[in-house]
């Protein structure tokens, strides 16, 4: 039945509904589904081989009619990949190898027994967890947008339709007027997930009201922030949700053509988006006369130029137009004069993926999640010095502490939490005193950081905040387009000042100079890249000023990171001459004095590589 209808054009709302029912029935006819994550993370750990092994094994045992094998996009817990989830029970196996497959089939699928060694173990308590929803990493999440990734094969449109996909589109086209769609999005309180947090409904309304035809919808999948991969995971894992969001946006503002701007480094995202567009067009969910409603909208894919600044709205549009991706002043909003000077809605991937949810379940339901001015959930990529890294989706208003300790499982090796960097290169570093802060757009901004695209980097006592500020600054220096003076020249100077502070050449008025340059960039730069570039410095100066002062005045790096400012020393009382460090030192800077006597470290020869510190099991090497 399904096979017969699939891929055929749907000409009405009821045809879509019928197909959805049929797919649901055919899925429940099978008792089990094995989902294997083949997101970029799990692929790197061998996801495809695991999936192939499952397919071969299921086939050779003739279990195809009972067990469905499905490859999906990223589930978020990439660190433990390849992930295998057996549904409907949701048994989670992690770090699965092709050799494990026969056993999984024999024991779990046939005999219903759980294989202990493939389960996730909670690091602290060593407790084994059987079900996906019990793993602490998932437990405190609210995976409204991202959750579907674990259930659908992104290359199979029927999977999306079977989960209720395109129902929001159908409702939009047949039950709502464009104004009502805009109103619903406004009432939901949805704010842009691309960085600025601009109210999506207001943006749609001004584009809708702007004079000019044609109008355009653009999906921003440039995602240049280092460490961020939520847009990629959504585009790879659930492209139809984004397309559905785009068509709804198009209907709301009156556009008939849209673009997905995907960075070139995301080949799988491009492939899946292309496939999704072709499938949706074939089934009448995109293109001419969608679902027989009379509304038409097509989507084209544009591959990004590869520069971070191309994510900026005006630069992105210039790039789509085939010009150099360089920003221009936005005194006239792109909602009025955007792509080819026509009214344009530009939205982030995640923003658009939220839209079907709002239409399906209503603005009231949506706005019940989150805080007063930040509604819904947000996907963050949690990385750095935290036990569980990966992509998480949490309701707005969750505290940083719950993210770092509850979901992230705390700091490895019992080190002390020092800071969390949020918002990507233009964000800021928040100290331990802010851990109880609820995470939303405004709270983060007030604290001197920002939501940004949602990268979160956890830092512990071994991170030097001056060094961290320098890292982000030099990233932006390398990404500056070079058009305006404050950004091009200012970033270079700020980086030079930080360089000299880190190398022990800091001067007494350097902090003041940094503050002055920060102001110049914040107020004087042409686009958001330069405008936000000072945030890492300003926030670290705000919360970790004494670290700057230690570098400049005492010529000391408290975290023991900045090489010119540190030295390795032997703590005589602790050193029984085990000779590990002597063997580890690549330059022969450590010599023994005989049995039971401490070793001697020659500061002149030492290159500060830290090898001795790393190998010493007795803690006899210290860094000062």
């Amino acid at each position: 039945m399904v096979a017969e209808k699939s891929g055929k054009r749907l000409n009405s709302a009821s045809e879509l509904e019928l197909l959805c029912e049929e797919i649901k029935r055919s899925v429940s006819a099978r008792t089990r589904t094995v989902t294997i994550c083949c997101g970029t993370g799990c692929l790197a750990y061998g996801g495809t081989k695991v999936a192939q092994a499952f397919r071969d094994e299921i086939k050779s045992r003739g279990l195809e009619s009972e067990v469905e094998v499905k490859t999906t996009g990223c589930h978020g817990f990439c660190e433990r990949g390849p992930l295998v989830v057996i549904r409907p029970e949701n048994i989670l196996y992690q770090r699965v190898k092709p050799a494990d497959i026969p056993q999984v089939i024999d024991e779990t699928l046939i005999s219903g027994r759980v294989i202990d060694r493939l389960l996730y173990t909670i690091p602290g308590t060593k407790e084994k967890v059987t079900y996906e929803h019990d793993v602490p990493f998932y437990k405190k999440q609210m995976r409204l947008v991202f959750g579907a990734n674990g259930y659908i094969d992104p290359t199979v449109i029927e999977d999306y339709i079977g989960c209720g996909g395109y129902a929001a589109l159908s409702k939009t086209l047949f039950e709502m007027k464009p104004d009502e769609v805009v109103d619903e999005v406004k009432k939901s309180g949805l704010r842009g997930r691309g960085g600025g947090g601009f109210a999506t409904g207001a943006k749609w309304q001004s584009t809708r009201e702007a004079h000019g035809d044609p109008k355009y919808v653009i999906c921003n999948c440039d995602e240049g922030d280092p460490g961020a991969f939520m847009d990629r995971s959504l585009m790879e894992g659930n492209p139809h949700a984004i397309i559905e969001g785009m068509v709804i946006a198009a209907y709301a503002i009156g556009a008939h053509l849209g673009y997905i701007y995907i960075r070139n480094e995301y080949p799988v995202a491009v492939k899946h988006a292309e496939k999704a567009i072709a499938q949706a067009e074939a089934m009448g969910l995109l293109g001419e006369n969608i679902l027989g409603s009379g509304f038409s909208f097509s989507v084209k894919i544009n591959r990004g130029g590869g520069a971070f600044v191309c994510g900026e709205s005006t630069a992105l549009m210039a790039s789509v137009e085939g010009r150099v991706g360089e920003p221009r002043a936005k005194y006239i909003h792109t909602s009025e004069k955007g792509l080819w000077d026509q009214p344009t809605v530009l939205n982030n991937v995640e923003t658009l993926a939220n839209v079907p949810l709002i239409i399906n379940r209503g603005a009231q339901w949506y706005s019940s999640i989150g805080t007063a001015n930040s509604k819904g959930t947000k996907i963050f990529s949690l990385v750095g010095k935290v036990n569980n890294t990966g992509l998480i989706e949490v309701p707005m208003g969750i505290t940083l502490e719950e993210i770092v300790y509850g979901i992230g499982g705390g700091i490895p090796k019992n080190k002390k939490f020092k800071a969390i960097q949020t918002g990507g290169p233009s964000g800021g570093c928040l100290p331990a005193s802010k851990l109880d802060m609820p995470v939303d757009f405004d709270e983060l901004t007030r604290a001197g950081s920002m939501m940004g695209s949602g990268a979160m980097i956890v830092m512990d006592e071994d991170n030097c905040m001056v060094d961290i500020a320098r890292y982000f600054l030099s990233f932006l220096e390398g990404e500056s387009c070079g058009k305006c003076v404050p950004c091009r020249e200012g970033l270079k100077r700020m980086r030079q000042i930080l360089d000299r502070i880190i190398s022990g050449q800091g001067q007494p008025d350097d902090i003041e100079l940094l503050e002055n340059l920060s102001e110049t960039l914040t107020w004087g730069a042409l686009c958001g890249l330069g405008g936000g570039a000072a945030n890492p410095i300003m926030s670290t100066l705000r919360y970790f000023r004494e670290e700057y002062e230690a570098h400049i005045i005492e010529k000391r790096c408290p975290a023991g990171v900045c090489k010119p400012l540190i030295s390795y020393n032997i703590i005589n009382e602790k050193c029984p001459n085990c000779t590990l460090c002597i063997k580890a030192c690549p330059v022969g800077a450590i010599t023994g004095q005989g049995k039971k006597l401490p070793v001697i470290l020659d500061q002149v020869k030492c290159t500060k590589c830290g090898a001795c510190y790393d190998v010493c099991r007795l803690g006899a090497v210290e860094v000062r």
Partner: protein
Amino acid sequence: MAIKLTINGREFQAEPCDTVLTVAKAAGVYIPTLCHSEAVSDYGACRMCLVEVERRGRKRLVTACLYPVEEGLKVTTDSEKALRVRRTVIELLLARCPGSAAVKEMAAALGVTESRFSIADENSKSDACVLCGLCTRVCAEVVGASAISLVNRGTEREVALPFYNEAGDCIACGSCAYICPTGAISLVDSGNKRIISWPQGTVDFAMKACLNCGTNYAPVRQVEFMARKSGLSPSEFDYCPDCRKL
């Protein structure tokens, strides 16, 4: 429909398409600029024209050369913040272009005589160029040759001929040299040669000699360009303007 706005407390009227800079200029209010010229489109790169505007109680700095006027706008061209940012910007340029008299002059006018930033690592090639892009805009928008462009990103950015040394599409008209505010482009006519030096390369161009008096009256390429553009026969350009009148 005229728009009312105030600049430094005085009320002015303007057309909706005017920018703050044009209104201020017409009113005789000075705003420093480096990358603006009436001849070409505005670009917003030098940020010297930053002024403070207030709209619905919210204050921010905007570039006067790009900001369209609007009803009730309050502009302050010399607010403390605008001045402070402008001074730091010119200080940055001073460190970048120690060789430019124009930059030094503008800095002095803003009360900046030295830069807090070292110039030690500057390469002498970009000695005077502030990367305002006036030359590339005039060449593209007015001349129509698009012979030079701004290449590379960030601090690597520079004005360059395609592939750095071939004259390519340059017709040797010299418009870029005339518009350059800093003297980073020079033009010398010597005998049958016109020598143009851009920040990243120097090219000699042959001059066309008048068939009658022998004067080198224009670069060969420019004459060819004019013939092409005008559709006139190349022989129309055999004589210099003076001899043609005879």
